[in-house]
């Protein structure tokens, strides 16, 4: 596994509670402690880069890649503005961002770098980078999640990230910002009353964490559509983060998995999970969906029948 450009991968929740008010709920505090543990492990790693894929950064024009060398702002969440403001100043790896963008193009994806003063970095990315890299010891890069993209684009997007790491000879900790179940309560709740929204969400969260704990990332990737149907509020077309994560990390089940914490975040399933590449594997199953190397775009299926 020494050739892997990935030191390890993290799956972390986007909500601001562990950053702003961890003391208000035991579970939020546990998530904060898990973030702190992950931060220490990043500091102890030989990572050159923290690469973030955030489900709370939607894009329309392909995928967007943050290339501003020092984005700075004070962010406030649309829903949880009452929890406080999140001032930030991050250090980004612009060279990686530009290389990533070029490799997306090589693999058929439409993407672009962005570097605008005042660009609204999303809540999930702000929370992750403030907790995991508070002193900007390691430069970061953030990539968006296109609202229309599906499996092939997400997997190719991950492969382009891996291409870039290898080309530039960099080692990265990759961070996926996403909940497990994402249904929040639609009314205000007292912090002490927070819990997973439903028994079904809880059951599926436990199943997903069992897979993560066994290092079965590729199996989760193959289960992504089922997860989307079962426990994801249908805000976008698919549950994409494990597709990107699996593709970036190398499409296998060869990881040591560790669930550092799991707790409800206003009803949704928040977990801090670490996957570290290893030589062992729980075994590869027979996968239903093909692998994809290059995105071919919309295939004009309807038009073809008219010729």
């Amino acid at each position, binding site marked *: 596994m020494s050739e892997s450009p990935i030191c390890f991968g993290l799956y972390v929740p986007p909500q601001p509670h562990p950053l702003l008010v961890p003391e208000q709920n035991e579970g939020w505090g546990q998530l904060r402690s898990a973030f702190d543990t992950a931060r220490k492990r990043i500091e102890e790693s030989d990572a050159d880069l923290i690469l973030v894929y955030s489900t709370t950064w939607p894009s329309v024009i392909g995928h967007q890649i943050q290339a501003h060398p020092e984005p700075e702002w004070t962010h406030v969440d649309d829903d949880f*503005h009452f929890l406080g403001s999140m001032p930030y100043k991050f250090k980004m790896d612009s060279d990686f961002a530009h290389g990533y963008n070029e490799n997306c193009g090589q693999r058929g994806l439409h993407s672009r770098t962005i570097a605008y003063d005042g660009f609204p970095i999303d809540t999930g990315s702000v929370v992750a980078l403030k907790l995991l890299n508070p002193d900007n010891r390691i430069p970061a890069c953030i990539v968006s999640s296109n609202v229309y993209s599906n499996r092939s684009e997400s997997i190719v997007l991950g492969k382009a990230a891996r291409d870039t790491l290898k080309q530039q000879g960099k080692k990265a900790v990759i961070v996926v910002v996403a909940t497990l179940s994402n249904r929040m309560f639609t009314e205000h709740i007292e912090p002490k009353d927070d819990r997973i929204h439903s028994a079904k969400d809880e059951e599926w969260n436990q199943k997903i964490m069992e897979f993560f704990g066994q290092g079965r990332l590729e199996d989760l990737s193959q289960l992504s559509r089922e997860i989307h149907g079962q426990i994801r509020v249908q805000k976008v077309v698919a549950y994409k983060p494990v597709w990107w994560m699996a593709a970036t990390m190398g499409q296998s089940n060869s990881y040591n998995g560790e669930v550092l914490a799991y707790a409800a975040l206003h009803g949704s399933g928040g977990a801090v999970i670490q996957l570290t590449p290893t030589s062992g594997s729980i075994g590869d199953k027979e996968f239903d969906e093909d692998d994809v190397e290059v995105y071919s775009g919309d295939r004009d299926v309807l038009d073809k029948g008219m010729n």
Partner: protein
Amino acid sequence: MLTMMNRLPLPHCDSMGEIVAGCIAPHPPHVVYADNPQQNEPNSEGGWETLRWGYAKLANKLKTLDYDALVIFTPHWQTYIGTHFLGLPHFKSKSVDPVFPNLFQFNYDLEVDVELSRAMHDAAKDAGMVTMMMENQDFRIDYGTIVSAHMLNKDWDKPLVPISSNRSRHYYSVEVMNEQARALGRACRKAILESDKRVVLVSTHSLSHRHFTTEPPIPEDMSKQHIYNHSNYVWDMKLIDLMRQGKMQEVIDLMPEFTEQTMAETDSGSISWMMEALGMPDYPAEIYGYQSVIGTGNVVAAWDPNPETREVVL
């Protein structure tokens, strides 16, 4: 179901509040980018004139109306925990569009009618809705609010009352969204009529809302602009035709199917809210223009409750 109160004409009384107009005002940042106002940093060679000229004509009409505030229901302040209202009087900052940052970096300085905002919040809360006042001074105003406010009033001399879009469509269904938005419309109408304010309602959204996922090298290259597909075009025209005929109840009844078929931005509840607040108009809309922006369908339209000033524009 509508109550009789909702079907009554809006009052014209000095001692009561009044809704003097309702507008559909789409917010693709392209129209501000194309206009090159001093507040926006990127520069363009124009573009989307059909929409911008329509906006200009509607803005001229609003100049002739006596009103105190623009009440804007925006799909780009997305909340999942009820509906939120701004609770601070002044916001000054910079809005950068997260999707089209190359087009929209707008320096804004705006006033909020907090009294009216709180009255709407309280009325919605009293009606059983989940509500919250937003009182964090670092909060950044969304670009949907800013684009529509700018295009309707470039002098920025009227306070705003932005209202968040509760995403009940995602959590439940388009039907639930429709009903919740209409309930919010009833509450806002009550708050306005019980106030001493005259307001213009703004429902800011596209109709069909499927985007192209690539952008031309020159974003304002009008040779590249067209609707995403013919189905969306036909649906958009269907709705505009009903608006012309004053059949807004039918529009609202069609809303679930239209929204699902065209990925319409009406999923925010914006038009359902406005029609209910207006008392479900049965008179023709004023149509100011229709044009595609990066695949989406956009209409500028208005409802003038006063038959003496109502116009046939297009």
